[in-house]
């Protein structure tokens, strides 16, 4: 049964204002192109990430955002407060200045960059690749996440190694696994995969790999080819 026969369902959940639908899940059991006898084929679920927060953000969040905006005008593109964690979305051209301000402004003083990690959202056209920096202020005992995006076609993000030397290996790891080029990194080479490895394994279009396992006449396909719940 193809999808055209199915009625267009009303929006399942009222998305919060400002939240964008990043993707849509359909069905239940991950079956494509065969008859749907389950009745779940018409199920649709929107993937809605937390909406940008409105002022007041609460607690120390407003002061931090104000100070950063004063230091780097136009630097903060979006503020998300979710589950008590503050995420600052920063345009990549402002990242180097924002990192320096976040470290050096006395009211911010995020002196440690705990972690850099990449995320691949293939459905977000124009911002497929994300980099999340987890900054820690030991002075004020606070944490903030700085998120930068770049399109798959132009995977360049400025390096923060000049501000946070600890980001050296983290950025190499993110380059290794996502193919994000950190401009200005002193030696952006692969770190965990072999030097001559083709591709960037953590991207969603990179297969997990593996072979089917035969047992008593049946074959269990590798994990990324198994039928799974959507």
């Amino acid at each position, binding site marked *: 049964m193809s999808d055209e026969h199915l009625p267009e369902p009303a929006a399942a959940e009222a998305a919060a204002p400002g939240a964008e639908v990043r993707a849509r899940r359909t069905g239940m059991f991950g079956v494509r192109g065969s008859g749907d006898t389950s009745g779940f084929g018409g199920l649709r679920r929107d993937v809605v990430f*937390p909406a940008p927060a409105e002022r007041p953000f609460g607690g120390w969040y407003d002061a931090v955002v104000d100070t950063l905006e004063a230091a780097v005008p136009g630097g903060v593109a979006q503020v998300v407060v979710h589950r008590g964690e503050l995420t600052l979305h920063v345009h990549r051209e402002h990242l180097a200045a924002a990192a320096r301000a976040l470290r050096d402004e006395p009211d911010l003083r995020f002196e440690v960059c705990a972690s850099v990690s990449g995320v691949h959202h293939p459905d977000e056209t124009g911002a497929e690749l994300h980099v999340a920096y987890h900054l820690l202020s*030991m002075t004020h005992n606070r944490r903030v996440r700085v998120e930068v995006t770049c399109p798959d076609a132009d995977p360049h993000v400025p390096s923060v190694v000049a501000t946070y*030397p600890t980001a050296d290996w983290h950025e190499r790891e993110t380059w290794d696994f996502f193919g994000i080029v950190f401009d200005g990194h002193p030696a952006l080479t692969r770190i965990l995969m072999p030097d001559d490895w083709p591709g960037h394994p953590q991207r969603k279009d990179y297969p997990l790999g593996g072979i089917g396992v035969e047992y008593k006449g049946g074959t269990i396909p590798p994990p990324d080819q198994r039928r799974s719940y959507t």
Partner: protein
Amino acid sequence: MTTTQGGRPSDPYAAGAAGDTEGADAGRVFTVTGQDWDEVVSGVGEGLDAERIVVNMGPQHPSTHGVLRLVLELEGETVTEARCGIGYLHTGIEKNMEHRTWTQGVTFCTRMDYLSPFFNEATYVLGVERLLDIEHDVPEKAQVMRVLLMELNRISSHLVAIATGGMELGALTVMTIGFREREQVLDLFELITGLRMNHAFIRPGGVAQDLPDGSLAAVRDFVALMRKRLPEIAALCNANPIFRGRLEGVGYLDLEGCLALGLTGPVLRSTGYGWDLRKTQPYCGYETYDFDVQTWDTADSYGRFRIRMNEMFESLRIVEQCVARLEGLEGAPVMVADKKIAWPSQLSIGSDGQGNSLDHIRHIMGESMEALIHHFKLVTEGFRVPPGQAYVPVESPRGELGAHVVSDGGTKPHRVHFRDPSFTNLQATSVMSEGGMVADVIVAVASIDPVMGGVDR
């Protein structure tokens, strides 16, 4: 020992194989395989005009603390440049986790830093619980059991750190004693979780299983034993002049260096700064336990050793408090009440070994259709986690261990990235060892205590 003069070395991984003349085949290459030191010395003495020697140490070397490759540039016995090569233990755990349910992810991440499995599980599970918004619904007993297991784990991990550190110095007694005591901890783990390592015991929503009978008594006996034995290790090492001579002033890294390079854990605390996430950003109810953060002010390997020693005593204090609390929590739930998240299956010991609990089978097959549905749905499909991202770090024995958990609303993680303290701390190898002696590189790396399973993941 084999030597190659110029030309192409037989080792395909030597830099010269790529064809650059400045690489490994530019000079004379010695392949050292052990017990051939005299030949190396005479060979080096013969006709080596240059003072500069590049030594490739590892990845298979008993003193590099795992499959770590150190590229050392030497002038005489002084290290002028030290570089790390990592990735030899990369297993793709983060990628694999994206293809399994949220609960199955625990089974993968427990194998990363194999000396502190409970911390890997805890940071991942805390992140998932934050995304599920059930942080405050996790039962008290589950939190106390997590703290109990993590603190026992901290003791076993620090024992290995001291044991292997001692072994790398040539102090084999320290190694045998350390591993002997660690075995006591692993026995407790086996009693409580069923496995010595790779437990997958801390699950989203609580822990997998209640405490078995007699486990609190076993933990009490263990604490009593360690109160006797830890001072023995301390007496053997603390004031030992050889130990002090090898460790003091070696691997120096001050507070500014630690912050710039992101070092946490005993290395940071050895600078005198008492940053411990259990105190500063408590999780699992650590704010309700009575313990002290251990610091030292020498910023060297000896300070880190003493901090690990002292932290084991503090962990014993916390373990005692956990045991006292667990005595009053007998029969309390260890999993959230929400049946759409709580892992349903229970295990028990039957005549043919560990398997599904017959009581649970009877319940789902004969008593409750609802329970059967929940069991089936959770085991086959798993639960869905609302979209978003979370980062809940914990204080692992090596420093800040965090999991950046990203969900897109599915039954599987969209992305999990682990901020492993070993990975970050290993960056300090160059700073700690350049300008020192070759033998001190070993001490500096041992004082960082990297676990390559965590570094490479």
